[in-house]
């Protein structure tokens, strides 16, 4: 199992993986997502411990904790995926190329960002269609409309796309003004 690393970046060019949404809007989204992550994982822990107690102490397992915890796991994974862009926590290689101000390196990064954004848009679009197709289909235990559950896919993809678009804009700015490499 591995985790990302970002140390060692030269001061004039931050790690290209750190895509922070700017301004008050960015801050508001960040706060909401952070709260959702903390709450989501907190609820997973509480309901699963409660379920163990119900099952082994009271011999009366509840029907819904597993499903709720699984849905929350998907939600924190996708929302956390957005925050991981901002915090540069995604597992990725950090080669010198990734921080080079050379126009060719920037072009390579631009291509990678575009492909990544293309995949996120593809998955998000698929998630939207999936949500629409299953809007009236209830989940097994919680009887939630599955369309509502699936909505987390396009919502998170939208946030990730915003972060990626911001990253793209910055790389393009670097390409245009080679004297102010990496300024943001």
């Amino acid at each position, binding site marked *: *199992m591995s*985790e990302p690393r970002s*140390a060692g970046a030269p001061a004039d060019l931050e790690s290209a993986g750190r895509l922070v949404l700017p301004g008050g809007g960015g801050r508001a989204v960040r706060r909401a997502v952070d709260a959702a992550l903390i709450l989501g994982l907190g609820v997973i822990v509480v309901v699963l411990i409660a379920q163990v107690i119900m099952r082994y102490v009271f011999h009366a397992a509840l029907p819904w904790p597993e499903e709720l915890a699984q849905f929350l796991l998907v939600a924190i994974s996708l929302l956390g995926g957005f925050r991981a862009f901002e915090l540069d*926590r995604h597992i990725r290689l950090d080669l010198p190329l990734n921080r080079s101000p050379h126009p060719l390196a920037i072009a390579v990064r631009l291509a990678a960002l575009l492909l*990544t954004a293309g995949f996120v848009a593809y998955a998000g679009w698929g998630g939207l269609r999936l949500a629409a197709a299953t809007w009236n289909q209830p989940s097994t235990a919680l009887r939630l409309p599955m369309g509502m559950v699936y909505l987390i896919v396009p919502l998170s993809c939208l946030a990730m796309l915003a972060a990626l678009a911001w990253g793209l804009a910055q790389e393009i700015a670097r390409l245009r003004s080679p004297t102010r490499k990496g300024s943001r």
Partner: protein
Amino acid sequence: MTALFLAFLLAFLFAAGAPIAFAVGVAAAAGLLMTGLGNATVAAQRIFAGMNSYPLLALPLFILAGNVLVRGGIIERLVIFADLVVGRIRGGLAQVNVLANLMMAGVSGSATADTAALGAVMVPTMRERGYRVDFAAALTTSAAIMAPIMPPSLVMVIYAIPTKLSIGAMFMAGIVPALLIALCLMAYVRWACRDMPLRVPEPGGPGALRATIDAVPVLLAPLIVVGGVRGGLFTATEAAAVLVGYTLLVTMVLYRSIRLKELAEILHESAVTTATVMLVVATSSLFAWFLAIENVPNAARDLFMAIADNKIVFLLIVNVFLLVVGSFVDTVPAILIFVPILQPAAVQFGVDPIHFSIVVIVNLMIGLNTPPIGTNLFVIATVSKQSVGAVTRALLPFYAVKLVALALITYLPILSLWLPRLAGLMR
């Protein structure tokens, strides 16, 4: 042709620094589009389904338990206790490193997390006592590979998804191989530190009794996981939930080393780590699904059957293959993409799937320490402020030690299978 293009696409995206989760996702989506086998809705559905799994719930819980213990100051307590046990022999602090890593492996499931956490404590301490920094770094990252081999193990939780193997049996199977790796490392350290001066006991530290009492709650934690999962009392997910409850009790009530506000930070940190792993799981599942409908696993099995004519040769080829894969690809996609390809062949050659899982995991863990793309190598280089090259040179003898352990684990299945059989978790 498609396969070649996808391999090129993956290599390009990895090199360009794209997150591995998304690079694999791009390749999977490209494969689906090129072959006309799926559309966006199917891709989104597979990604969701790849994460919407009960066994995977163990992942955030084990990550959280590890983070709670690290933030609660557990590493320091373990190091003090290990010092008490093996600190007085020649090369004592290096032995402490191995023992602390082994004990930490019993509560943590991630080699990378352990490399970072123990490296931050052990490398400076060893430097102060006259050890070479590159040796300390190489030893720490080598010993950290025990984390996912000793239960609990994030890697085993993920391994169980495509293979449907019993996580409990895998947990049991990892114990003896992890101990074997510890033993091999300790034997090497004994030899490598033969010229180190013996240490005089330092006054002022906590007494022996105090250090032991401090460490006991942590040493008990693995029993919850192993004891709970054994005999099917708990599922791995339930054991992980109980472990989280236990670690919170120990750190917040017993040690009082974590406050409520810090708990929110730990939850946030753990959620983001979970997300980074889960997204790799999700897109790797999508990629593996694409390979499966392209019938790649069966073709690979036939290929292996054609080039290897017995179990010994097959395992040798697999070891070489996985060592190479492990030096280039992260553990999670390596498992989700290659295990469905390799396991049918292993079964065909009469290799027990549980034994095979341990062989695969040990291989990939060695890969985490191997250039060009060894995550833990980069982590320890950063933590110890050494160049990757310096750490790699210091790692050379450790590779030999780990390969000896790997050979024993590969060709003596009893090492992996004895405990799960004893526990009645497999025939």
